[in-house]
């Protein structure tokens, strides 16, 4: 005999709960996190090099965490700016999740950090559905990728609070149709700001830092239509769900993750202090126990 249960549980609830906790912990420290999404090769790292250098010049305390499936190349590049940088090697996982991120930050994030840049894994599909506890989500597109990128990846561009175009020094050479791009962005994310940048000629350098600092000082970021969802029916007890305005990070599909069935649990991190690239590698971490190197004391955020 069968019996059924009406669960109505958001699948990604655990990730969203963890993200909300992280966001409040960061807020208590005066830190805002900026989640950077793009396809591989769009220029996230080059953009960040400029933003970190700009922060350094202005004396603004920032930090960066960069995620890749393999290599520490990005962290080495970013560490040259003199800003605290940590590399996460995801060991094959195609996106960052809030649950793992909290572990990476514990004991590493320097006190007083105003902006924490999170360079997500280069991927416009999977990272889009995971809230990382950021207060500003930025999706990048380079001019070489085509004007229809926002339509092909509507979740990534539709949930962005700032859209940032990179490599604009190449726009003329590749025939980038700026008007068509802006129309496509407006279709999936009406009202979002689009910022044009070039790491090569310096156009727009510092703009992202300014947006992040504004949020850190209390400015309310853009709320994408895709994120303006009505409150889902709470689980497990059915309760009337009216009268509450969801935040930009509340998805109709909250999330949960523990990866019991596959090898996502061996991500590991490397702490890049400026001018020091001698890293120990320990790939044998236990499930759910990320271990930032150089972080002897686990300091709950």
């Amino acid at each position, binding site marked *: *005999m*069968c*019996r*059924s*249960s*009406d*669960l*109505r*549980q*958001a*699948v*990604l*609830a*655990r*990730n969203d709960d963890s993200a909300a906790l992280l966001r409040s912990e960061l807020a208590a420290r005066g830190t805002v996190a900026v989640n950077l999404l793009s396809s591989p090769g769009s220029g996230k790292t080059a953009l960040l090099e400029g933003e970190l250098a700009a922060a350094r010049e202005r004396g603004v305390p920032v930090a960066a965490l960069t995620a890749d499936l393999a290599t520490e190349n990005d962290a080495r590049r970013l560490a040259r700016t003199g800003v605290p940088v940590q590399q996460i090697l995801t060991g094959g*996982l*195609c*996106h960052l*999740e809030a649950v793992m991120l909290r572990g990476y930050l514990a004991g590493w994030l320097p006190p007083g950090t105003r902006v924490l840049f999170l360079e997500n894994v280069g991927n416009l*599909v*999977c990272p*889009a*559905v*995971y809230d990382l506890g950021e207060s500003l989500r930025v999706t990048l597109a380079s001019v070489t990728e085509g004007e229809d990128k*926002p*339509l*092909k990846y*509507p*979740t990534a561009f*539709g949930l962005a609070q700032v859209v940032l175009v990179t490599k604009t020094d190449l726009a003329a050479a590749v025939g980038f149709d700026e008007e068509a791009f802006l129309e496509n962005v*407006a*279709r*999936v*994310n*009406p*009202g979002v700001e689009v910022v044009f940048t070039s790491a090569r000629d310096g156009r727009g350098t510092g703009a992202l830092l300014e947006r992040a600092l504004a949020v850190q000082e209390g400015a309310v970021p853009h709320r994408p*239509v*895709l994120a*303006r*969802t*009505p409150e*889902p029916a709470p689980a497990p007890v059915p309760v009337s769900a009216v009268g509450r305005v969801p935040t930009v990070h509340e*998805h*109709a*599909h*909250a*999330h*949960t*993750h*523990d*990866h*019991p*069935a*596959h090898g*996502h649990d061996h991500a590991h991190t490397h702490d890049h202090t400026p001018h020091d690239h001698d890293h120990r590698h320990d790939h044998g971490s236990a499930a759910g126990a990320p271990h930032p190197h150089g972080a002897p004391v686990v300091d709950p955020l």
Partner: protein
Amino acid sequence: MHEMSIAAAVVEQVADAAVRHGATAVATVRLEVGELAGVVPEALAFCFALACAGTVLEGAALETLGVAALARCGPCAVEWRPGMPPDLLCPRCGGPDAVLLTGRELRVREVEWAGTVPSAPAPPS
């Protein structure tokens, strides 16, 4: 391919619910997947079978209930289906102030238990 992560999350939630309900096996999991949830149902179905292996969900069927997207303009209250890729500008006033009523669901709707359910035992045959 985050569908594996999502499948694993579904399995974990249903396995927890099975403990709460005293169920020892699962017949069917019904999952609501919105049109704009960013999840491919076919990929999820493939991953679900793998994620169920060795758990109380082993052999369970996955039924995906698609949810169409529906948007409503705040100022003029017109409702429309944004489609895919979604067109979220109001078709009447062209404004940017819509709310997405449905379309991003990713939710375990219902579970049909199999096997022993102590709280609702099968009548003796």
